[in-house]
C-alpha cells in the first residue's frame, strides 16, 4: 500500500467511493420506491373497499341487487382490481368478479381482520359489510400487483443503468482529476530529480493555484534563492581565491624583501669584523655577535610569520600516515637529551590525513616539551584515544609548565613566556599548532600549572572531509 503511487491511491479511493455510492443507490432507492408504492396501494385498496362496502351494504340492506352490481361495476373502473367477492351473512356468495384465471382457494379462509394478505401477484383485503349497524356479510377485494411490480422493475433497471453510468463517469472523472493533480506533482518530481542530478537553472512550470500549485511556486522560490546563494558562493570563493593569491604573493614578497637587507647586515658585520682582523676591540666583537644574533632572531620571526600565514592555505595532499612511525621520526630528528624519556603509549593509528600539518603539530609540541623541560629526569608521554570521528592525542610532560593565566596567551602568535634572550623562541610554534588543528576542524586544549608539567590535548579528524581545501 505504501509503495503505491499517489495517483493509484487517489484513483482506487475515488473508484471505491463511487462504487459504494452506486451500490447504495441501487439497493436503497428502488426498495424505498416499492415500499412507497405498496403503501399507496394499500390505502387505495382500503378506500376502494370502504366505498364498495358502503355501496354494497346499502344494496344488501335494501335488497337492491342492481345497486350491488352497479357498485361491482364501479370497482372495475380500476383495472388493477382483479377480484371482488361479496358474501352475505349466511355465507352465500351474492356477487363476484374475477379477472384471475385461478381464484385462490384460500380466499374463503382469509381473516376478516382488515389485514392485507398477498397471495401470488394479488393483494387481498377482506372487510365486513354493515348497514345501519347491522352486519350484512363480508367483502373481499383483490388488487393486482402486476402493474406496480412492472413499474418497480422498470425503476430498478433504470436505477441500475443510472448507477452503472454514475460509476463509469466517476471512474473517468477520478482519472481526470488524478491526472490534473499528478501533472504538477510530476513536474515537481522531475524538477527535483533534475536538481539532484546536478542541473542548474531548473524551474517548475506551475499551473493552477491549488496546494500543489502553491507548493510548486514555493519550490520555485526556493530554487531561485538556492541559485542566488550558489552564485554568491561562487563569487565569494572567487574573491577568496583572489585574496589568497594576493596573500601568497604578499608573503612571498615579505619573505624575500624583508630578508635581503637582513642578510646584507649580517654579512657586512662579518666583513667588518674580518677586515679589522686582530685590531678589533673585544667590546666591538661582542656587539657584532649580538648584532648577528638579533639578525638571526628577526629572520626566525619572519620565517615563523610566513609559516603561520601558510597554515591552511596550502593545498596539501592526503596521505596514509603511520603515526607511530611518524612520531619515531620526529623524536629521532629532535634528538632529545638522554635525561628526557619520550614514551609512546598504546596503539597509534594508521590513517589517511594531511600529513604535513599533523607532523608539524607533533613536531612543535614535542620540541616545546623537550625545550622547556627543566627536570633531571624528564618525561614526555604520548597517548591517543578516540572520540567519535576524531582522534584525541595527548602530549604530556613534567617540565616547567604554564600558569593557568597564560593558557590563552601562549596560543597567540609571537607570545613567549620567557625573554627571547633566555630561551631562543619565536612564539610561533603554539599559534601554528592551534591554527593547524582548528583548520582541520579539531580543538586544542592545555592543562597545566606552573612547575607541574604541561598536558596538551588536541583532536584530529579520522577522515578527511571532502569540502576541505
Amino acid at each position, binding site marked *: 500500500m505504501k509503495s503505491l503511487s499517489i495517483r493509484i491511491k487517489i484513483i482506487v479511493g475515488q473508484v471505491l467511493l463511487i462504487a459504494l455510492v452506486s451500490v447504495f443507490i441501487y439497493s436503497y432507492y428502488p426498495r424505498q420506491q416499492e415500499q412507497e408504492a405498496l403503501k399507496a396501494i394499500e390505502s387505495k385498496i382500503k378506500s376502494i373497499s370502504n366505498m364498495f362496502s358502503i355501496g354494497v351494504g346499502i344494496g344488501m340492506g335494501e335488497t337492491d341487487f342492481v345497486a350491488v352490481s352497479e357498485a361491482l361495476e364501479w370497482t372495475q373502473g380500476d383495472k388493477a382490481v382483479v377480484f371482488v367477492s361479496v358474501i352475505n351473512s349466511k355465507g352465500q356468495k351474492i356477487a363476484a368478479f374475477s379477472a384471475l384465471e385461478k381464484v385462490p382457494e384460500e380466499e374463503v379462509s382469509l381473516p376478516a381482520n382488515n389485514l392485507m394478505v398477498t397471495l401470488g401477484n394479488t393483494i387481498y383485503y377482506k372487510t365486513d359489510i354493515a348497514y345501519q349497524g347491522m352486519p350484512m356479510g363480508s367483502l373481499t377485494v383483490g388488487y393486482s400487483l402486476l402493474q406496480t411490480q412492472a413499474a418497480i422493475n422498470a425503476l430498478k433497471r433504470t436505477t441500475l443503468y443510472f448507477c452503472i453510468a454514475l460509476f463509469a463517469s466517476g471512474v473517468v472523472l477520478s482519472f481526470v482529476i488524478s491526472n490534473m493533480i499528478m501533472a504538477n506533482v510530476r513536474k515537481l518530481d522531475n524538477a527535483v530529480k533534475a536538481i539532484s542530478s546536478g542541473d542548474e537553472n531548473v524551474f517548475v512550470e506551475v499551473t493552477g493555484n491549488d496546494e500543489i500549485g502553491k507548493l510548486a511556486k514555493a519550490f520555485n522560490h526556493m530554487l531561485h534563492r538556492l541559485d542566488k546563494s550558489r552564485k554568491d558562493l561562487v563569487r565569494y570563493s572567487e574573491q577568496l581565491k583572489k585574496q589568497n593569491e594576493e596573500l601568497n604573493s604578499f608573503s612571498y614578497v615579505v*619573505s*624575500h624583501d624583508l630578508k*635581503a637587507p637582513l*642578510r*646584507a647586515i*649580517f654579512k657586512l658585520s662579518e*666583513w667588518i669584523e674580518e677586515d679589522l682582523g686582530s685590531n678589533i676591540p673585544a667590546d666591538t666583537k661582542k656587539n657584532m655577535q649580538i648584532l648577528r644574533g638579533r639578525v638571526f632572531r628577526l*629572520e626566525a620571526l619572519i620565517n615563523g610569520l610566513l609559516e603561520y600565514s601558510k597554515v591552511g592555505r596550502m593545498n596539501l595532499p592526503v596521505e596514509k600516515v603511520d603515526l607511530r612511525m611518524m612520531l619515531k621520526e620526529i623524536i629521532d630528528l629532535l634528538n632529545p637529551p638522554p635525561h628526557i624519556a619520550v614514551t609512546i603509549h598504546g596503539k597509534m593509528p594508521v590513517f589517511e590525513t594531511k600529513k604535513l600539518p599533523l607532523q608539524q603539530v607533533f613536531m612543535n609540541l614535542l620540541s616545546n616539551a623537550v625545550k622547556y623541560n627543566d627536570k633531571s629526569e624528564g618525561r614526555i608521554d604520548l597517548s591517543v584515544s578516540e572520540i567519535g570521528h576524531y582522534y584525541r592525542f595527548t602530549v604530556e610532560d613534567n617540565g616547567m609548565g604554564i600558569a593557568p593565566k597564560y593558557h590563552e596567551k601562549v596560543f597567540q602568535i609571537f607570545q613567549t613566556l620567557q625573554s627571547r634572550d633566555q630561551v631562543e623562541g619565536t612564539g610561533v610554534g603554539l599559534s601554528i599548532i592551534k591554527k593547524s588543528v582548528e583548520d582541520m576542524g579539531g580543538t586544542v586544549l592545555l592543562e597545566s600549572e606552573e612547575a607541574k608539567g604541561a598536558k596538551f590535548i588536541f583532536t584530529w579528524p579520522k577522515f578527511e572531509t571532502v569540502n576541505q581545501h
Partner: protein
Amino acid sequence: MEIFKYGDMANLVNILLVEDDEVDIMNVQRAFKKNNINNPLFVARNGLEALDALRGNNPLTKVPSPRVILLDINMPKMGGTEFLNIIRKDPELRAISVFVMTTSNEESDKIAAYDLNVAGYILKPLSFEGFTSAVAILNHYWQLCEMPQGVIQ
C-alpha cells in the same frame, strides 16, 4: 654593467653573476677571493642586462664562452625565471649551465627552475662562512666538469 676579472686564463670557465643586490655581489666576489677562484666574473644587474651580455649586444661587455651563470630569482625588470625561460628557447644560449642562487625557499620557484633545466638550486646561507664553502664546492664542480670550448652556433 660592470665587469670584474680576477683572471684572464682562456681555459677557465667564464662566470656570469646575475644579481641585483650589491651586498650579494660583494658576497660572491669576496667568496671567490677567499677560495682563490680565478675564473673571470661578469656581473649583470638583472635578466635584461644578462641577455645583453650573453648575446654580445655591446661587444665590450660580451661574456665569452665557455660560461656558467649564477642566477638570482628576484630581480627588477626581468627576474630569474623569466630570464631562464628566454635562454632555454634561444638555440645559442640554451646549453649554458645555470645555477640558481637565491634566498627564495619557495617550492614554486624551485619547481619552475628545475623545469628549465638548472644545474642546481642553491639557497644562500645567512652566514658568509656558509656561503664561502658553498662557492668552494661549486668551484670544485666546475673544475670537474668538461665544458665545450667553442662558441655554439
